[in-house]
């Protein structure tokens, strides 16, 4: 029997949960609506961090041109497609074959060339200037193993960017009680608060791999406009970047 290479970095129940939603990933009013709302803040953060790190002009039409980006846990490509339009050469990997199929179909329809592979970071070929993993680490069974696999193909001068949910009482109140139970914004059971990751835990996992945190920013939801804005409040949604 073949060894299961993803065993420590992937939770099969979590994969099944997201595979079931694959057909609705690209509907901004569907179950993935919060991800679409969050996407603007995520891309802005990633673009600006990458531009600062690599000395690019963020106002250029294609500020990321020439950069190889690996998107770990890419889903149906909500992040991979905008990064491609901003000029990056993107490889997207996801453990859900259904999500990858949806991603391939959508990229083709939009005329975008993106290298999609089923699996973890190890499924990607070559080395990368940027490794990004957004709304993923709160779903993995072993954080240290996941991060080690994700940054393995990162170049020496590369940039690592993650987005996730903090394990705070406020995050429990907003992301689980609020979003899943009161607003029914997310399907119940989308998140398990126990698996949320504190910035310090992510930083520690990165430090053992000789990566140091450059920036931690919050993404704060504004109920009046139903949008997320970058902020200093990292209690719920936050983004982190690190380099060597």
């Amino acid at each position: 029997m073949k060894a299961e290479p993803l065993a420590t970095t992937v939770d099969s129940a979590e994969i099944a949960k997201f595979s079931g939603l694959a057909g609705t990933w690209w509907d901004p009013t569907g179950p993935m609506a919060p991800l679409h709302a969050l996407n603007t803040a995520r891309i802005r953060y990633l673009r600006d961090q990458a531009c600062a790190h690599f000395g690019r002009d963020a106002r250029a039409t294609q500020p990321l041109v020439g950069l190889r980006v690996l998107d770990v846990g890419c889903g149906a490509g909500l992040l991979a497609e905008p990064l491609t339009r901003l000029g990056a050469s993107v490889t997207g990997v996801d453990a859900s074959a259904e999500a990858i199929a949806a991603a391939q179909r959508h990229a083709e329809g939009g005329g975008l060339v993106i290298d999609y592979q089923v699996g973890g970071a190890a499924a990607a070929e070559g080395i990368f200037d940027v490794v990004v993993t957004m709304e993923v680490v709160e779903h993995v069974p072993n954080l240290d193993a996941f991060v080690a696999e994700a940054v393995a193909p990162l170049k020496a001068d590369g940039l690592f960017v993650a987005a996730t949910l903090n394990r705070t009482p406020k995050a429990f109140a907003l992301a689980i009680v609020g979003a899943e139970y009161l607003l029914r914004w997310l399907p119940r059971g989308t998140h398990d608060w126990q698996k949320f990751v504190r910035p310090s835990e992510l930083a520690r996992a990165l430090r053992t791999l000789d990566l140091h945190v450059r920036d931690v920013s919050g993404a704060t939801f504004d109920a009046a406009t139903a949008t997320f804005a970058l902020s200093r409040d990292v209690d719920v949604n936050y983004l982190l970047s690190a380099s060597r």
Partner: protein
Amino acid sequence: MVGQTLALALAGAGVEVTVLERAAPEAALAPTFDGRASAIAYASARLLAGIGAWEALAPHAQPILDIRVSDGESLLFLHYDHRELAAGQPFGHLIENRHIRFSLFAAMARAGVRVRAPVEVRGITTDEFGATVTFADGTTVRTRLLVGADGARSFVRAQAGIRSRGWEYPQAGIVLTVAHELDHEGIAHERFLPSGPFAILPLPGRRSSLVWTERRDMAAQITALDDERFAEELRDRFGDFLGDVQPSGPRWSYPLAFHRAETYVAQRTALAGDAAHTLHPLAGQGLNLGLRDAAALAEVIVDARRLGLDFGAADQLARYEKWRRLDAVALIAVTDGLNRLFSNDVAPIRLGRDVGLGLVNLLPPLKRVFVGHARGTSGKLPRLLLGEAL
């Protein structure tokens, strides 16, 4: 004009854009194509400057320094005096539409905007990823976003299956340019006569543009009169406060109608300007409202593009729709209400509105709200209307 403004704003920000025009440029620029003049609000002028179309327009723009609203024979005037505004800025400018069209065409040529004119669009199909436009000669063009800025009887709107609601006023607008003996001193007059509003709008020199509202049957009879009888009817209403008045050039008659599209967006489609809404022309806000559509849509598109987002996707179009809807609804309600209130000769209503106009004059904060709308600076403004870059 709205579509060309949008195209210029987008081209300036590096977005690839193609303009499709039904009419050939020569026809659209002929002096007989459109006899109207537009009140370009202060914010709209900033937008035109930002897209490189204002410099050529400035010599043809008459600053509006004062607006006097009066009610028939009433002596109660409502003054909007620009000296009450900060920084001595005029309310806006009066410009003949032919000059605006010419300036926009010239700016498009300078900016290298791709224009296909004249073209006849036969059909439009949309899918999840884009829109395909088919021309009469069988050729097609594919785009991520199709903008319908094709007028009150919009083909794009009909093809998208967007319904539009509205009604026709029992009035028509007679439009013409007049020459007068005395200087108008930059003062615009809006008189509410029993048949409807009669607006005298200052143009450069000793000329004014008239929007003369009449019952439909009367309008047809009046425009059909010979020159001498027509001039008599005109003087009856215009008066002699600017000395002798002579009609100059052709007369036009436009049916007055109001409509608003039920939604401004559909799959890979957005509506702007008259395709989305028309107003009663009494407040001179129709083009300004359309230019605000163009500025808002350009900002939504450019902001999305800077993040690599698909600007033709439903969530981006929803942003545009949400931003613009309130503005249009408010203006349609205000202008329609004014018309109904004033196109009326019932004594208690007359008294009420005389007192009302007098009161507005006495209440500076309320007046500032009206003035703000006249200048186009109410509400959350797109960057282009603030004179900022996209």
